[in-house]
C-alpha cells in the first residue's frame, strides 16, 4: 500500500482509535472507582437501616423492591447461626466470618459483601460486582459514542485534505506528461507547498542539466554533419577527376588522391565515434589500475612506423613505475592522439620525446616535440571540437585534442600545453590526480 493518502488515513485513524480506546479505559476505571465508593456506602447504609427488632413477619417484598435494581442480596442470621432471612433464596451466599467489607468469588462472579453485627443478628448485604462494572462500562460507552461516530467523518475529511494537499503533485505530473521531449524549460515554482518545492527545484536542476547536455549533443551532431561535408566533397571531386582521366597515369594519380580522401573521411568518422564514446560526464568504463609505463611503451612502439616514415625521432626518454585507475583503451587513444599530433606537426629531422614521471605521488606523461608550437592565444581554443589552426598541410579532423580533453576529464587528469623554452617545440603534459 504505497500511497501517501492511504497511509496517512490509516495512521491518523489508527491513532484516533487508540486515543478513543485509551479515553474509554480511563473513563471506565474512574467510574468504577467512584461506583465502588458509592455502592459500598450504600451497602453500609442498607445494613444499618434494617429493622433491628425481632424478625417477625418482615415484609420481604419491601426489601426486594429496595434491592432489586442494585442486585442486592440481604441475609440475616442470629447469633447461633440460624438463618432468619434470605432476600433471595436462589442466590444464597455463604456466611462470612469476618465483619466489614470483603470481595468474594463465587460461581456467579465476584460479589461485594458487607457484614455487620446488628444487636444479636449478623446482617450480610451483598451485591454482584458486575453491576458496578456494567455501570462503569455504560458510562464509558456513552461518553465515547460520539467520538466513534465521528471517526468515519474524520476519515473522509483526512482523505479530502490530503488529496488537496497533494494536488500540486498531480498538476506537476500533468504538466510534465504533456511535455515534448525537447521542452526542458524549468517548472514554475510559485504557489507550491514548502514540502514539494525541493523536489521541483531538484527536478528543475536536472532539467537544466539535461537541456545543456541536449544542446551540446545537437551542436555536436550539427558540427559533425558539417565537418563530414568537407571530406565527402573532396571524395566527390576526386571521383569526378578519376572519371575524367584520359591516360593511365592521370587515372592512377586520381585514384591515389581518392584513396587519401576516403581514408580521411573514414578517419573523421572514427574520431567522431571515439569522441561520442568519451563524452564528458560519463565515468570511465573501467577503474582497473592502468600501468602507465606499459601504456607509454605500447603507444610509442605503435607510432614508431609513422615517425620513421616522417623521419621524426620518436622515443621514450624517461619512465617510472606508475599506475592510475582508469580505462586502458581510452588512455591509449588519448596518448596516441597526442603522439600522432606531435609527429605530424614536427618537421622531418625533428624529435618527439615521451616521458613518464612521478612528482609527489602524481603521475605525469609529457610529450615534447620540436614542431612550430602553438601561439599563446590559440592554446585554449585548440581543445574545441573541429577547431583547426591556420591552414597547414596536415588535414586533420580537428577532433584529436577535443578527444584528449574528454578522456582526460573523465580520468580527472589535466592537460597542459606550453611552448618549449628555448623553442621551438610544444610540450603537452597530462597530470593525473594522486592515487
Amino acid at each position, binding site marked *: 500500500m504505497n500511497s501517501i493518502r492511504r497511509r496517512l488515513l490509516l495512521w491518523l485513524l489508527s491513532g484516533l482509535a487508540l486515543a478513543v480506546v485509551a479515553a474509554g479505559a480511563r473513563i471506565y476505571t474512574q467510574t468504577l472507582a467512584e461506583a465502588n465508593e458509592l455502592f459500598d456506602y450504600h451497602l453500609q447504609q442498607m445494613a444499618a437501616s434494617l429493622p433491628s427488632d425481632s424478625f417477625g413477619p418482615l415484609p420481604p417484598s419491601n426489601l426486594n423492591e429496595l434491592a432489586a435494581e442494585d442486585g442486592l442480596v440481604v441475609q440475616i442470621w442470629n447469633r447461633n447461626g440460624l438463618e432468619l432471612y434470605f432476600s433471595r433464596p436462589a442466590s444464597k451466599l455463604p456466611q462470612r466470618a469476618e465483619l466489614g467489607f470483603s470481595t468474594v468469588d463465587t460461581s456467579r462472579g465476584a460479589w461485594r459483601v458487607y457484614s455487620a453485627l446488628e444487636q444479636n443478628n449478623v446482617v450480610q448485604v451483598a451485591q454482584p460486582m458486575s453491576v458496578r462494572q456494567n455501570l462503569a462500562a455504560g458510562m464509558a460507552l456513552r461518553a465515547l459514542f460520539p467520538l466513534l461516530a465521528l471517526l468515519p467523518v474524520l476519515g473522509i475529511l483526512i482523505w479530502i485534505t490530503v488529496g488537496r494537499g497533494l494536488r500540486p503533485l498531480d498538476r506537476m505530473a500533468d504538466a510534465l506528461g504533456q511535455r515534448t521531449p525537447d521542452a526542458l524549460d524549468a517548472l514554475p515554482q510559485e504557489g507550491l507547498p514548502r514540502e514539494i518545492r525541493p523536489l521541483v527545484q531538484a527536478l528543475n536542476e536536472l532539467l537544466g542539466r539535461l537541456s545543456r547536455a541536449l544542446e551540446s549533443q545537437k551542436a555536436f551532431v550539427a558540427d559533425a554533419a*558539417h565537418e563530414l*561535408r*568537407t*571530406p*565527402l*566533397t*573532396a*571524395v*566527390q*571531386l*576526386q571521383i*569526378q*577527376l578519376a572519371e*575524367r582521366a584520359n591516360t593511365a597515369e592521370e587515372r592512377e594519380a586520381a585514384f591515389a*588522391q581518392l584513396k*587519401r*580522401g576516403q581514408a*580521411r573521411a573514414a578517419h573523421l568518422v572514427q574520431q567522431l565515434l571515439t569522441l561520442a564514446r568519451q563524452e564528458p560526464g560519463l565515468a570511465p568504463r573501467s577503474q582497473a589500475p592502468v600501468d602507465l609505463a606499459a601504456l607509454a611503451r605500447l603507444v610509442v612502439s605503435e607510432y614508431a612506423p609513422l615517425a620513421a616514415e616522417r623521419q621524426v625521432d620518436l622515443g621514450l626518454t624517461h619512465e617510472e613505475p606508475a599506475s592510475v585507475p582508469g580505462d586502458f583503451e581510452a588512455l591509449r587513444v588519448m596518448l596516441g592522439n597526442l603522439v600522432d599530433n606531435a609527429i605530424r606537426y614536427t618537421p622531418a629531422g625533428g624529435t618527439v620525446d615521451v616521458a613518464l614521471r612521478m612528482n609527489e605521488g602524481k603521475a605525469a606523461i609529457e610529450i615534447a616535440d620540436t614542431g612550430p608550437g602553438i601561439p599563446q592565444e590559440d592554446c585554449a581554443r585548440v581543445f574545441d571540437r573541429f577547431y*583547426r*589552426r*591556420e*591552414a597547414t*598541410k596536415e*588535414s586533420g579532423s580537428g577532433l584529436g585534442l577535443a578527444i584528449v580533453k574528454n578522456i582526460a576529464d573523465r580520468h580527472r587528469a589535466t592537460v597542459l600545453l606550453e611552448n618549449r623554452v628555448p623553442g621551438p617545440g610544444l610540450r603537452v603534459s597530462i597530470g593525473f590526480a594522486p592515487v
Partner: protein
Amino acid sequence: MRLLLVEDDPMIGESVRAGLQQDGFALDWVQDGRAAELALQTNQYDLLLLDLGLPRKGGLDVLAALRRRGDAIAVLILTARDAVTDRVKGLDTGADDYLVKPFDLEELAARIRALLRRQSGRADPVIKIGNLSINPATHEVSLDAEPVALSAREFALIHALAARPGVVLSRAQLEEKLYGWGHEVESNTVEVYIHSLRRKLGADAIQNVRGVGYVMPKPS
C-alpha cells in the same frame, strides 16, 4: 579566364584546381582570407570562388571588404553552410551565386560559365561575333558553321578576347588569363597563340593595337 579559388582544405583545393584547369580556366589558389585579399589586390581576376570558413579572415568579411572597395568581380561562394539564412546572408553580402558542398565539378564549371557570361552582358551561352561562334561549355569553335579545332590555350585566348569584343587586352592581361601561378610563361607565347589563331580563324579575327594589345573587333 582567370579565377581565384579561396579554399582552406588542401584536398578540395587540389581537386577543384585540377578540375577547372581541365575545363580551360586559369586558376590561382590561396588558403586563407588575408592571402585572398592580397591576391585580389595584386592580380586581375574574372571570378572569385570563395569558401566561407577560412582561417585568418572569414569569407564573408573578405566579400564585404571587396564590395566596399567597389570591386565588381563575380563571386561564387563555395561552402558547407547550407542553412537558408547562411545562403541569404552570403548573397546579400554581395555574392552572385552560392554552391553548397559537396558539389559537382560539372555544375561548378557551368555556374562559373553562367556568371562570366552575365558579366560580359550576354544571355546566349554561345558567343557569336560575326561569322565566328564560340561555345564556352563545350569548347567548340566554328567559323561559318564549320568546326575549327583549337588547343586548350588557343581556346582560352580566343574566349578571353571574345568575352568582351571591342575591348583591348594587353599581352600581360592575356598572359594572366592563360596561366595560373606556378606556370612558367615564355616571353612570346601570346604572340605564338595569336599567330596560330589568325591562321585558323582568318587574319582579321584578332586585331593588333600597336603598343597596347589585342582586340576582337565588334561586328558592325
